[in-house]
């Protein structure tokens, strides 16, 4: 019984992490209809920024996290303005090729500068080990992940629903033409959202170094997971990807624990079945563009 709860807890932590990693992609892929397979590269950038700051410069872990966010966000903004912007109207094949090229480049570049072995970020001792709550083993680090990611999710929901920027984004996504007719600077809104999503991915990358492992192959290894979150979750709201991430996280942890021999088999099968059953995702509708 307790092992079920512990697994559930780990699964929720994993799922929340996946959500923070992938919610930027939910906007680019789900809403702007840009097939960006290189999303993981921005997450990896955040992870490595955090690793360099903490391990190399001796910064405290929590001080480095915001910089992982800002660093990846800036990189994302630069790429959006410099490269991605020109490809919004191209075919999906072009977008796929372009982003695969970026993934290859990022893998080799990180390998060149940082080495090919897995990187560990030095954690403060307060985050290590686990404690028992009502007989359930709770890892401190995972608890922190749940708290941070939970807060971020609530914040995102608030921004989308309550702020002026949120309503602009929703308008731009629903009907870019009408939105620009109303004086909303649609490209700017998309650029900012793209950069913000990359920043979140970077933060997720920094947080996930301990759980998922951080090495140059990160963008390739987890690409399919990000894609699953977005395609299965759909893109009508933030809730869809969030629920999909939780399902994926819990399913993956439980699958690895109870049927370790089947490995990722279960996840892929479920994904294909869901996509066949509902091509626009479980909670989705078609993208506006």
């Amino acid at each position: 019984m307790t092992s079920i709860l512990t697994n559930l807890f780990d699964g929720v932590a994993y799922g929340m992490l996946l959500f923070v990693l992938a919610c930027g992609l939910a906007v680019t892929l789900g809403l702007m209809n840009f097939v960006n397979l290189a999303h993981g590269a921005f997450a990896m950038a955040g992870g490595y920024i955090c690793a360099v700051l903490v391990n190399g410069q001796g910064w405290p872990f929590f001080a480095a996290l915001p910089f992982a966010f800002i660093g990846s966000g800036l990189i994302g903004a630069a790429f959006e303005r410099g490269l991605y912007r020109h490809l919004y109207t191209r075919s999906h094949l072009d977008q796929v090729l372009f982003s695969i090229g970026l993934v290859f480049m990022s893998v080799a570049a990180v390998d060149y500068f940082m080495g090919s072995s897995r990187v560990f970020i030095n954690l403060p001792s307060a985050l290590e080990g686990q404690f028992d709550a009502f007989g359930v083993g709770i890892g401190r680090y995972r608890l922190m992940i749940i708290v941070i990611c939970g807060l971020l999710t609530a914040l995102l929901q608030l921004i989308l629903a309550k702020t002026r920027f949120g309503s602009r984004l929703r308008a731009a996504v629903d009907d870019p033409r009408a939105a620009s007719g109303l004086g909303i600077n649609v490209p700017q809104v998309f650029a900012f959202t793209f950069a913000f999503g990359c920043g979140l991915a970077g933060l997720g990358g920094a947080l996930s170094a301990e759980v998922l492992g951080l090495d140059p192959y990160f963008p390739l290894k987890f690409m399919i997971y990000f894609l699953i979150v977005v395609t299965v979750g759909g893109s009508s709201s933030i809730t869809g990807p969030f629920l999909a991430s939780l399902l994926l996280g819990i399913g993956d942890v439980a699958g690895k624990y109870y049927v370790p021999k089947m490995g990722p088999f279960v996840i892929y099968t479920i994904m294909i079945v869901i996509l066949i059953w509902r091509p626009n995702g479980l909670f989705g509708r078609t993208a506006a563009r």
Partner: protein
Amino acid sequence: MATSSDVGRIARAHASWHWSEIAFWCLALACGFAFPSRYLIMTDIVRLGLFALSLDLILGYAGIVSLGHAAFFGIGAYSAGLLALHGVITEPVLALLVAGLAATVIGFLTSFLVIRGVDLTRLMVTLGIALLLEALAERYSDITGGTDGLQGIVMAPVLGLFEFDIFGRTGFFYALIVLFLLFLIARRVVHSPFGLSLRAIKNNPLRAAAIGVPVNRRLIAVYTLASFYAGIAGALFTQTTQLASLDVFSFERSADLMLVLVIGGTGYLYGGLIGAVVFRMLQEFFSTITPEYWQFWIGLVLVVIVLVGRARLHRWVLLVPNWISRQLSGRKAAVAIPESEA
């Protein structure tokens, strides 16, 4: 407006052999005699060319974007390996056909999943199928050999006559002949009314359906055919390298394949073959400069190709050959630029 007899005449003119095509195949054959020390890499190019030809059938002619074409390559590779390893069918040509058919069956079954949905769903489903097969191959490692791969494959002589030699001479000519035969079939297929209907579907599925083309059935047919080709390519891989390991299913293989096809250009069959030559040369070139980081430069090539624009790039590349062929024969260039990109 072209009358129907005009359409037939133009289609037949396109289907007739151009002298530059004959020159291309003569050149390929000549390479087999000119570079006896390079059989291994040339065999590799031929295999890759066949694999890219397979992707061209669905991407260039039917417009299906697949990120998991390695699935069928892997099925073919493991089928050929298992057939040879357990001595079920030792004769390579027969084993090649059986392995191809195994991939065809999987291709036919999965085609129903692939034709549903839009581009993005197709991407995910094809990718998912390849990953699924990779996970399965890893799971049943008692059959597939797991991460070590199938070991100790010994190939019988081709047709009982030609022994596989250590220099790869037999392997090269065997692969080249297989490629040529399959190319002939593919050429016949894409110039048939069936091939023309595929182009119609690619350009506009709705309009194709409106003029009476059974869109889904055509897509299933071409997807199945392409999986046969990919299976054959995989089987050739196992037979000529005597190796089959988990990486036959890997995502990198599917991604590299896209690059091969994009370098050569989609939709005129030779794109995959030319792309295979250029890609391998590039890979060799980059890995002599930077043995560990060649992937970076390959990625850069991909990004630049997309940013410059594939159609424009191919116009530049084909500028000189087309000009020469216009001057010499005064007729339409053989390697025409595909009218619209996928």
